């Protein structure tokens, strides 16, 4: 899954809550300070539920309030809109305004060192980053400097091999290093040093250093990390943070920043529905930008982080910029016009559904694209509309096993037809039922969107 879809899922609950607040404000017309305070209380709760650090929440709501109770807001004709605007601006600011890239050393190889808590996703991120850099014309070398976790080096080697990436795990040794023994740090430093030599020897211009997971309060291991840093002289130290992290994200980030020093962050596992409060908090307390986000387990699931787009999504404003970019890249213009007509006439059949799925699959999932539309992030039923990669072929098989008539008018599909379709497509009747339900939900949604002029136009452009 890609960032687009995942972020919508990630922030949808928060978005719901905030939109509730804003709707309430709009309903009130003119605002008093009391109204603003009540709104701030709700925003505070919504952010806490999204795992934003409570100290960050306090400062955030205080600063929004300060701006919101100013004369020009309360006296404006659209005070609620003003508050929304302020919240959006402040959220963006909190996550760092501009997109931040990687810094390379003038004297290659540049070293990018990944650090973080256990299981945050460092090893996976290392491979993703190497893959990303290679696609930009770099020659990366992955260095496996975790000698403690069982099979950590194996993991990196396997992932590297699968993607055709070069991995260095140290010079061959006679006996494995005892992970609990006193020589681990020395052996780790040896892997780092020989990795740098190997990079120079084989003409690699970037070294990506995977380190072992460690707790920020583990002094021995933090000392080791400092030693590794000193030996590797990285141009980038990136803290890898799990998007599901709770209130403690801030402590962790602060200590890593203070003890080891960090230049930026990678936020992982954004493909789930973590509300991602860590994204808001960590940047706020360390002042370091989020540079990439992980959006899946596969090597390609790494994307640059866009604070402004993220803030829009949090507030349910959709991400029209991305949507248009993607649509232009993938869609067939002639088909889009035709579809638009059909939509207007409410003639969206299962054939069109399949056609859409095929096109949309080129851009990402159906769900994520709908999520990019303003307002759609708020619609609950959509979030349950699961059309994931694997399921696509099943859906395709089911629709292809229907007669033309059935595709045009699914209401005629009774029990015996369902069984026939299931048998024909090698699926179960439950699968067929699920698809029919998805189709009918999509149709309902389209009717709803088509009901309002502006959104209907947006939809026409989407497809």
């Amino acid at each position, binding site marked *: 899954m890609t960032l687009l879809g995942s972020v919508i*899922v990630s922030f949808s609950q928060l978005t719901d809550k905030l939109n509730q607040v804003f709707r309430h404000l709009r309903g009130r017309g003119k605002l008093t300070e009391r109204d603003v305070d009540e709104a701030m209380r709700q925003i505070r*709760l919504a952010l*806490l*539920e*999204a*795992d934003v650090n*409570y100290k960050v929440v306090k400062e955030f709501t205080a600063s929004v309030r300060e701006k919101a109770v100013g004369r020009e807001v309360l006296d404006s004709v659209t005070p609620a809109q003003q508050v929304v605007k302020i919240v959006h601006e402040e959220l963006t600011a909190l996550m760092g305004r501009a997109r931040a890239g990687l810094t390379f050393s003038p004297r290659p190889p540049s070293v990018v060192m990944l650090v973080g*808590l*256990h*299981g*945050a*996703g460092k090893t996976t991120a290392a491979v993703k980053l190497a893959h990303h850099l290679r696609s930009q014309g770099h020659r990366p070398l992955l260095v496996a400097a975790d000698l*403690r*976790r*069982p*099979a*950590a080096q*194996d*993991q*990196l*080697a*396997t*992932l590297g091999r*699968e993607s055709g990436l070069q991995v260095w795990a140290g010079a061959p040794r006679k006996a494995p290093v005892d992970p*609990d023994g006193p020589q681990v740090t020395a052996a780790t430093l040896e892997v780092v040093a020989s990795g740098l030599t190997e990079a120079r020897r084989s003409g690699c211009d970037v070294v990506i250093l995977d380190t072992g997971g460690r*707790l*920020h*309060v583990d002094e021995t291991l933090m000392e080791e990390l400092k030693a590794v840093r000193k030996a590797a002289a990285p141009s980038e130290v990136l803290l890898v943070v*799990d998007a*599901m*992290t*709770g*209130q*403690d*994200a801030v*402590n*962790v980030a602060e200590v890593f920043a203070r003890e080891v020093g960090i230049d930026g962050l990678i936020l992982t*596992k954004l*493909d*789930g*529905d*973590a*509300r991602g*409060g*860590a994204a808001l908090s960590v940047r706020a307390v360390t002042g370091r930008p989020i540079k990439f986000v992980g959006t899946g*387990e596969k090597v390609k699931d790494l994307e640059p982080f866009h604070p402004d787009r993220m803030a829009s999504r949090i507030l349910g404003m959709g991400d029209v910029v991305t949507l248009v970019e993607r649509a232009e890249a993938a869609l067939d213009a002639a088909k889009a016009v035709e579809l638009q007509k059909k939509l207007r006439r409410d003639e969206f059949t299962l054939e069109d559904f399949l056609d859409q799925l095929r096109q949309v699959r080129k851009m990402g999932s159906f769900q994520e694209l709908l999520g990019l539309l303003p307002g759609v992030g708020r619609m609950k039923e959509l979030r349950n509309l*699961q059309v*994931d990669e*694997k*399921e696509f072929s099943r859906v395709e098989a089911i629709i292809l096993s229907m007669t033309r008539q059935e595709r045009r008018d699914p209401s005629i599909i009774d029990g015996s037809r369902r069984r026939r379709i299931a048998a024909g497509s090698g699926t179960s009747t439950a699968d067929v039922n699920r698809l029919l339900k998805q189709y009918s939900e999509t149709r309902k949604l389209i009717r709803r969107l088509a009901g309002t002029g502006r959104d209907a136009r947006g939809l026409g452009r989407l497809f």
Partner: protein
Amino acid sequence: MADTVGGGLARARGGLGLALRRILSGGRKVEPALYEELLETLIAGDTGVAAAEALVEEVREAAIRRGVVEAEGLRDLVAATLAAQLGPAGELQLPGPGGPPGVVLVVGVNGTGKTTTVAKLAARLAAGGRRPLLVQADTFRAAATEQLSIWGDRLGLDVIHHRPGGDPAAVAFDGVRAAQARGRDVLLVDTAGRLHTRAGLIEELKKVRRVLAREVEGAPHETLLVIDGTAGLNSLEQARVFNEAVSLTGVVVTKLDGTARGGVVLAVRRELGLPVKFVGTGEGVGDLVLFDPVAYAREMLAP
């Protein structure tokens, strides 16, 4: 296993315990600001606003009923309320001698500590006289088998596994057969990390469970969700989905050796009724603590 419980109790003194004792310390009176601090402390420990408010409300009512006016007097109330909300202590419920082999299925999102927990549970069961067999039903993650095999070597236990990319349910099936053939009385089944939002992967897990249920009477006897103690409220969503899919019997909270407090288990217990069975406190095989809420809460707030 008194030692492991003791290890856990020592931890109760730090983190949340320390913060709570500081608030409920000598000289202070029971006042609204104090409840506000209590609330904030709980929220900072990842309990979520709802669970924190429920706990504070209960304490407040009890304080009024009993006419408690000194902050110190609240300690017992907080301890009792916490313990009650956390539920019973969580020993594994496995069939006894003469019964079918016990089956423990370990599930959760990516990187929470499942594989390590499987190794820890195996060590604990072996120390208790059981004969465990490890089953690697994670055929997806790179080097998942190597990782568990290293633990197996260290513990002197066999690991049943297939090739990468194989069918997890088939490994589970082979695990059961191997346990019967080799006379093992507990199967510990490790699974791949999967986000609860991935419907397809949740289906895959259901299939593993179905196979175990079909092959062994009453299995899986324990289905444990491993929650990362540093995670926030998302763990509640995880618990909800995994519980619906594979009927969890309890949770294991890992990585509590850091500064995270894993308060989300309060919400998990409150909303889903799932008890915390074990707590992970390190990367070593002995770093697993049987969780006893009453002893834990008492120790946390004792002077």
